[in-house]
């Protein structure tokens, strides 16, 4: 093997403390080195040409460049090697700048270390193997999980670009939390009015396959090549026959057995129902847990009234598999149920505010429903306990947010804004009413946000009190709210008619289970982790899986929508080529030697190790061995260190290469 060594001065950067000519002289004597030079700037065009010419003229098989960190210029020199006709993975670097000249002062010491590092690189490169980039085909279909505003936006963007989309939503209708909202900040436009057209667009889009009342059960494969299993839960309605006339819903005799979750428990729904009138698709669902038919086989009123024979009591869950190239996670959030503490600890959360005990102590989404024109009170302000108009309403912020003791350390980000909106909506409808907001800080960064909060205070006369409330208790039909104004330094007690708690936004139910199913990491709160907090906020660390909206952290509508469009753009980047190229730094198993203990499989962070059966001529399985899926392997090498019989190697970092480096010390 003919090896060339190229030592770079990096101007003065290396040359000042490392005697570069001496290093290149020393390298001449290393076994296998046939050419060794030093030059002012190896990364410059003349420098690169020097390398290319040497490769061609001297017939070099491999090169070592002694210059800066490989993180800086490995790509540059590998490209040069490729241009000159040798495999780019037969190029190694010795880091003489960051690890030598910049950190040592003594020229003698530095030069000696530079020689050692160069020798190690030479010994390594001798054992390098030519590697070919790995190519995998891409299925150009996107799976969007979650049909809230983020999922809707992402699905529409991808579909409008001409790619097929499968949109999976676990509820019977898409729309998410946004469909529950009354008006939205900071413009106070009606949430339903801007959302419903989008929902219909999704339904009618020829490129979108909408699967409501469905959940993702299994995800296999890797970027560009996912195989996804989806469970379509039984609606007990034949969707192909149902016209959405709603006769079954109006005739269903079960009226007061099940709470309406869309109305946040402030109303009832029948056993056969659509979550809300504008639901998409407008196909009802039969709730087995309350329907009389499932109790005793009787009733069947819906069957009688349905002119289309669409009721199917014996319908079963169905498993559907889809071939997918990219996945967008848009599973959203849920509100922290403050009647319970998140862990299984003995202490329950916020007993001091009496949520769950007093009917008129409600959370933010319940308030949205009361304020909504389509809500249980048709938009009139009536308190849940006695239907009277509340004349004094207290809003408490940061309930469960910024609370290490009973909730979560993070700020839920949207509560300052929606509380201002709530107070404003209330004041707009109840002119003689009083609204108090207890806050700790007002966080209103965003276009027109601070102006919005000021409007609530200046124009609508909402009173802001800086301090956390300690206790809410009931006395003669009023709720005594005990607080402290920390600015005045005075205790404050307010006799309120209704109390609204801005409870924390937390990760969706079972978010961590879904993350495990899909194979992406999540943080301690259950929010999905982005690949890099600043530079890769849309991607998960798993290739081909992107994040949109509040599943990543608390977000408001414009942020969720922006993120959804960004995720859609990311999938289109992926779909821009037919084949995916990957660095060939992946693990390889020697199947002859593999003993089949599968420790590699246990430690692999990417589930990239598969089981392969070795059969004899008669097709009888002799043994099972490990096999690396190139698409999934990210090249960490944890398997190689774990393997007891050393039957798995990481390409580019083989044990032989490392031993050679150690031996060259």
């Amino acid at each position: 093997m003919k090896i060339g060594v190229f030592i770079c001065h990096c101007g003065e950067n290396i040359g000042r403390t490392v005697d570069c000519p001496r290093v290149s002289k020393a390298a001449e004597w290393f076994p296998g080195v046939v050419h060794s030079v030093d030059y002012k700037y190896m990364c410059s065009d003349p420098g690169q040409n020097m390398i290319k010419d040497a490769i061609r003229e001297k017939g070099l098989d491999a090169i070592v460049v002694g210059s800066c960190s490989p993180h800086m210029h490995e790509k540059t020199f590998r490209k040069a090697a490729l241009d000159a006709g040798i495999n780019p993975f037969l190029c190694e670097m010795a880091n003489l700048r960051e690890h030598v000249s910049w950190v040592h002062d003594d020229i003698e010491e530095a030069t000696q270390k530079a020689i050692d590092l160069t020798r190690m690189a030479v010994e390594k490169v001798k054992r390098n193997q030519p590697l070919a980039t790995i190519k995998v085909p891409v299925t150009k279909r996107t799976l969007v999980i979650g049909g809230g505003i983020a999922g809707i936006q992402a699905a529409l963007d991808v579909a409008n670009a001409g790619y097929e989309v499968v949109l999976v939503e676990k509820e019977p209708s898409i729309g998410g939390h946004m469909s529950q909202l009354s008006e939205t900040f900071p413009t106070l436009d009606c949430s339903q009015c801007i959302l419903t057209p989008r929902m219909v667009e999704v339904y009618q889009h020829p490129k979108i396959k909408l699967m409501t009342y469905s959940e993702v059960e299994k995800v296999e494969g890797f970027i560009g090549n996912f195989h996804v299993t989806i469970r379509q839960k039984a609606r007990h309605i034949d969707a192909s026959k149902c016209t959405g006339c709603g006769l079954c819903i109006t005739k269903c005799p079960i009226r007061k057995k099940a709470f309406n979750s869309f109305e946040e428990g402030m109303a009832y729904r029948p056993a056969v129902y659509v979550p809300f009138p504008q639901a998409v698709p407008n196909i009802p669902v039969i709730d087995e847990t309350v329907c009389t038919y499932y109790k005793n086989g009787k009733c069947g009123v819906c069957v009688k009234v349905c002119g289309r024979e669409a009721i199917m009591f014996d319908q079963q869950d169905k498993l559907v598999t889809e071939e997918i190239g990219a996945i967008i996670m848009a599973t959203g959030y849920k509100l922290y149920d403050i009647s319970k503490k998140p862990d299984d600890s003995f202490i329950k959360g916020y007993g001091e505010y009496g949520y769950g005990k007093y009917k008129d102590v409600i959370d933010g989404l319940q308030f949205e429903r009361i304020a909504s024109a389509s809500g249980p009170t048709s938009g009139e302000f009536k308190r849940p306990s006695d239907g009277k108009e509340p004349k004094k309403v207290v809003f408490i912020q940061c309930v469960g947010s910024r609370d290490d003791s009973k909730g979560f350390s993070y700020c839920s980000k949207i509560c300052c804004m929606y509380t201002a909106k709530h107070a404003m909506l209330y004041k707009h409808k109840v002119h003689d009413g009083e609204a108090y907001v207890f806050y700790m800080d007002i966080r209103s960064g965003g276009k027109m946000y601070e102006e919005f909060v000021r409007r609530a205070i200046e124009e609508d006369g909402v009173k802001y009190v800086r301090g956390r409330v300690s206790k809410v208790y009931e006395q003669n039909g009023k709720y005594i709210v005990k607080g402290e104004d920390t600015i005045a330094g005075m205790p404050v007690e307010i006799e309120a008619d209704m109390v609204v708690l801005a409870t924390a936004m937390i990760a969706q139910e079972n978010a961590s289970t879904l993350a495990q199913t899909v194979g992406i990491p999540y943080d301690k709160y259950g929010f999905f982790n982005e690949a890099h907090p600043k530079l890769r906020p849309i991607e998960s660390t798993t290739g081909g899986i992107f994040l949109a909206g509040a599943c990543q952290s608390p977000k408001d509508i414009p942020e969720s929508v922006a993120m959804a469009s960004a995720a859609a753009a990311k999938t289109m980047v992926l779909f821009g080529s037919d084949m995916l190229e990957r660095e060939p730094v992946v693990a390889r198993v020697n199947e002859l030697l593999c003993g089949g203990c599968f420790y590699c499989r246990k430690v692999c962070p990417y589930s990239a190790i598969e089981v392969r059966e070795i059969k004899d001529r008669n097709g009888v399985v002799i043994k099972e061995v490990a096999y690396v899926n190139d698409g999934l392997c990210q090249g960490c090498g944890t398997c190689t260190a774990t393997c007891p019989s050393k039957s798995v190697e990481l390409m580019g970092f083989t044990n032989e290469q490392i031993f050679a480096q150690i031996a060259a010390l």
Partner: protein
Amino acid sequence: MENNLKAGYFPGCSQTGTAREYDLSLRSVAEKLGTELTDVDDWNCCGATSAHVTNHTLANALAMRNIVQAEKQGLTEMVAPCAACYNRLIVSQHETQIHPELKKEIEAILDSKIENPVQVMNIVELFTKIGADKVKQAVVKDLKELNAACYYGCLLLRPSDITHFDDAEQPTSMEELIKLTGAKPVEWNFKVECCGAAHSIARKDIVVDLSKKILDDAVAHGANVMVVACPMCHTNLDMRQKAIKKEYPEHKEIPVLYLTELIGLALGMDEKELGINLHTVKFELKKETA
């Protein structure tokens, strides 16, 4: 009777004086329920509020001496019926467990090793340990005439991450217990509000105000008796009603019973046996006419 409970008993100073009836009723009820209480040998005052507000080392040392005494006696469980004593003991035990340097310091002062095997219980936990079934079986008198406001006060439940006992804001364990006697618990607001405790003597004015608020709320929610589990609460709520009456002549008096007294009544003991006659606000069950 089989499965009889054996537990150590840390009476606390009040039980030898102002709260004599608490001690009396606890001992009689325990005996009736077949529970064997062993007094901690030569116990000393837990230091109460006065110690920990002025010198934390002293406070921990005083409390831990009792734990060590119990330890030497081989006790594994110990009931401290006074909520304040309970709080001091369990907090000191916790502190020495999690702060090794503090433990060393206290060990040096006490000249004794701290092993901490003793589990300190409050009075409600004692009854839980005895068992609801056992209490229920022993009830001979239905106390349905009582609408009771259960008052936990501050120190029975706090700090909740150390006591690990019931919900710190909306507790229900005492209610569950008194339901066994037929008494009806009322839902009210100030189960865990503070009565002023240690300020009983030095700032009577504060205690009068705070106690009045608590008593009024109980009455407003339909209570005809209050149930407490702490001699300090009892002093403030019962004894101070005279002073409250002086300050607020319209004040409506309400009797205040120790939890043990109420259970004692249900077990068929009479007021005198339980020391209820020693209270400031008089209390007597209706005489049965049958």
